[in-house]
């Protein structure tokens, strides 16, 4: 086992982890504001096709990433309109968003099936990005570094800024936040749009970085893993970062075990691992701390002020 072997394995793990990290980080902020958006998978698909289409049309990957973020945020805002303005059920509306996003992305993608774009590869010079060892640091798409930087920013925002405190207050006790004059609905709209933008970029990572093509339902359920990841991380950005990489390692282990002919557990067990680990962590959290641990108190509840 050479250094190069581990470098290549790490590159695969980063590829598996980054989309769920991006989408999970967005969803974490959404949930911190008290909204449960189960439409992550749909928003990722909309981001994937929007990014791909923008890349085909403009040829500029940076424009494409922005397009993916905007498309994700728009679809999330539609969700926001239903659950925040019309007070519809968040679980049902989120599921509807996934179904809508799946269908809409297929429709929009009709003319893009079978086309390819330039891969949004590394921005570092090939001497570094293609180097057999140094690619472990420099060989990634800018989206990978963006995701890691965003973890720090979100952590700082939620923990160290006044706006972050307000967002958390809205998620913990919406009526109190409302009574001292904060716009609960406004904060939640912003959070939901941010979550959509991050999911959109996560989706674009599939259609522009991993496999630079559009194919229907190409995210293949990663949105659900991102949702599990938020719970796994206990709504903490730092833990979300290593949780995403931990999930990536689990997914890669399955493939390495299979490819090397190594079998002591059935493959279905590996595929279930992210969910299994989430359940285990949930059990640990709820046994250690009272009242469901770190989950925002208003998560999933509609905001219904008295007047």
């Amino acid at each position, binding site marked *: 086992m050479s250094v190069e*072997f581990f470098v*290549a*394995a790490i*590159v*695969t793990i980063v*590829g*598996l982890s980054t*989309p769920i990290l991006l989408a999970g980080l967005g969803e974490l902020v959404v949930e911190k504001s008290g909204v449960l958006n*189960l439409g992550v*998978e749909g928003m990722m698909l909309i981001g994937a096709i929007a990014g791909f289409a923008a890349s085909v049309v403009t040829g500029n990957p940076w424009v494409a990433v922005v397009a993916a973020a905007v498309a994700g945020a728009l679809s999330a805002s539609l969700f926001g309109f239903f659950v925040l303005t019309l007070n519809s059920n968040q679980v049902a509306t989120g*599921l509807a968003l*996934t*179904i809508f996003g*799946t*269908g809409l992305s*297929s429709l929009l993608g*009709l003319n893009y*099936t*079978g086309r*390819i774009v330039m*891969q949004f590869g590394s921005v570092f010079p090939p001497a570094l990005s293609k180097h057999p060892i140094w690619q472990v640091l420099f060989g990634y798409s800018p989206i990978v570094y963006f995701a890691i930087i965003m973890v720090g920013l979100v952590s700082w925002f939620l923990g160290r800024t006044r706006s972050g405190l307000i967002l958390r207050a809205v998620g913990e006790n919406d009526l109190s936040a409302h009574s001292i004059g904060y716009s609960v609905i406004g904060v939640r709209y912003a959070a939901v749009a941010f979550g959509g933008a991050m999911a959109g970029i996560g989706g674009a990572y*599939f259609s522009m970085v*991993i*496999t*630079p*093509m559009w*194919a*229907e*339902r*190409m*995210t*293949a*359920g*990663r949105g*659900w893993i991102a*949702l*599990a990841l938020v*719970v796994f991380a206990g709504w903490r950005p730092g833990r979300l970062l290593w949780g995403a990489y931990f999930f990536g390692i689990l*997914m*890669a282990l399955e*493939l*390495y*075990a*299979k*490819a*090397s*002919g*190594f*079998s002591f557990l*059935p*493959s*279905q067990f590996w*595929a*279930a691992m992210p*969910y299994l680990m*989430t*359940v285990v962590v949930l059990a640990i959290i709820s046994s250690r701390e009272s009242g469901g641990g770190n989950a925002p108190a208003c998560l999933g509840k509609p905001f219904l002020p008295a007047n």
Partner: protein
Amino acid sequence: MAILTRRDFVKAAGAAATLPILGSTAKAADKLKVGFIFLGPIGDYGWTWAHNKGRLAVETALGDKVETLYTENVAEDASAVPAIRDLANAGCKLIFTTSYGYMDQTIQVAGEFPDVKFEHCTGFKRADNVSTYNSKFHEGRAVLGTIAGMMSKSGKLGYLGSYKVPEVVLGVNSFTLAAQKKNPNATVSLVLIDSWYDPPKEAAATETMINLGDDIITTHTDSPGPLQILEQKGLYGFGQGADMSQFAPHAHLTAIEDIWGPYYTERTQAVLDGTWKSTDTWDGFKEGTVHISPYNSAVPADVQKAADEIQQGYKDGKFNIFTGPIYAQDGTLKVKDGEVIADADLAVMDWFVKGVSTAS
């Protein structure tokens, strides 16, 4: 657990929500209406795309005498029943259901419409008005194995598969045996990803096999994702179901294409002539159902010649990759020298040959 349940629910809901679209409308009453049930979208550049090409071939060949209808994105669950029934109610007298998972649904609807002929792809349940048909994809795998065996530098080949079903087992064994005829030390590492379609997982599995030393990888899953990874790494692979060279101009050595047009045309003609009978058809190179795409210029002339010989051998009926001696994974002799595995045994094959490395 809640999340697992949610996910399953949504998968089912999502499948139901991608509304099946009736593709074309029927007017003239004296034309024979032929219906098709498709698994994916007709633009999937793979399985369904190939079946739709078969549908178009029927229209081209029989012109005014026929009218075709199709429904795409039909899930392999109970929702297939009304989808098939709709085509029968729309006046189709011949209906092709083009995936394994429509087997019981086809039999059920066929019972309701005894005067309609049904053709079910890759299944094994027949009735007086239900035929089955399949393609010997594994014959194409013998060509790919020949190319891989000759072109691989390491002798380590990769096979990315979906599930351990006979179609995949046959493909793996055919590919491996053919490669070993050219390079006796060739080994094949098999990765089954428990899905026909999961582009990111297909891509990650391809990276994994490359990292473990495989230098030519063939795929038995439906997306062009693996080919794109091979293109990025400067390695070689093959298209699955259709010519996928546009996705990987350098890495795509050739592809196995599924050609359904002649069969669909022949069966439609039989209904027109009143000679249609329930049969079981398993065609390959000889009948033109399996086709090999043009070779990439990276395939050397001697390799092209060897690959052509395999194709010709199948067309002449002189070659069969499942000719003994064949050893199982653990080295025991399964097929004696000179013996040939019968089609009936191939159809249920569940063991891998020597040289295949697999985790289960």
